């Protein structure tokens, strides 16, 4: 299955990319998506995750065609 991964703000700057396109053979969680895209970098503690623009936990499942996003705590308003 194909997953699009997006990164924002300080996290995007620290990993040096704004997005990745991943292919998975079997089932995967949001945490698996991070580990596959960033094998040498642990997910920072405060990072938030979203699937298809809704907040999710790291053990949430992903499916083919999903857009997974990782970003730091939000600071709007």
């Amino acid at each position, binding site marked *: 299955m194909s997953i699009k991964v997006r990164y924002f703000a300080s996290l995007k700057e620290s990993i040096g990319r704004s997005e990745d396109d991943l292919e998975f053979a079997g089932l995967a969680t949001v945490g698996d998506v991070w580990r596959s895209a960033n094998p040498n970098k642990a997910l920072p503690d405060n990072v938030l995750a979203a699937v298809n623009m809704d907040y999710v936990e790291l053990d949430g499942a992903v499916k083919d065609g999903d857009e997974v996003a990782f970003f730091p705590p939000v600071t709007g*308003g």
Partner: protein
Amino acid sequence: MGIKICATSFDPWQEIQAHQHSAKDMAGKFGATNVFIGTMRDFNEGDDVKGMTLEHYPGMTEKQLEKIVAEALQQWPVIDALVVHRVGDILPNEPIVLVAVWTSHRGDAFDASRYIMEALKSRAPFWKKELLQSEAERWLVKNTDGYL
């Protein structure tokens, strides 16, 4: 209901006036309008700030704001609501956010607009990067809790 993301400076008072003018069916129905406007300061955490860049996640921002407004509508008898938020490069004294809520009575207007604003602060995917007078740049790490 209205949700707008603006890439250039906006006038919150014009936005309120235009929205109220276009929503003709609420004329005579509302008795209270509560307005919150957030404006960029030229100082933060002890430093002089000369500019700011607001990044957002297009699509998710609108989706989360729609969800937050829908939650407010479930909890209070809101007649109408308007949320406008800036993105891009911002200068001190420019408005960042507008939340306006129209209700029959004032208590609901205060409570619903507070709810929308606090939820926006913790859930809408916007990120601020400050440019200091010293030319240093820094990302804001976390929003403060508005209820403290």
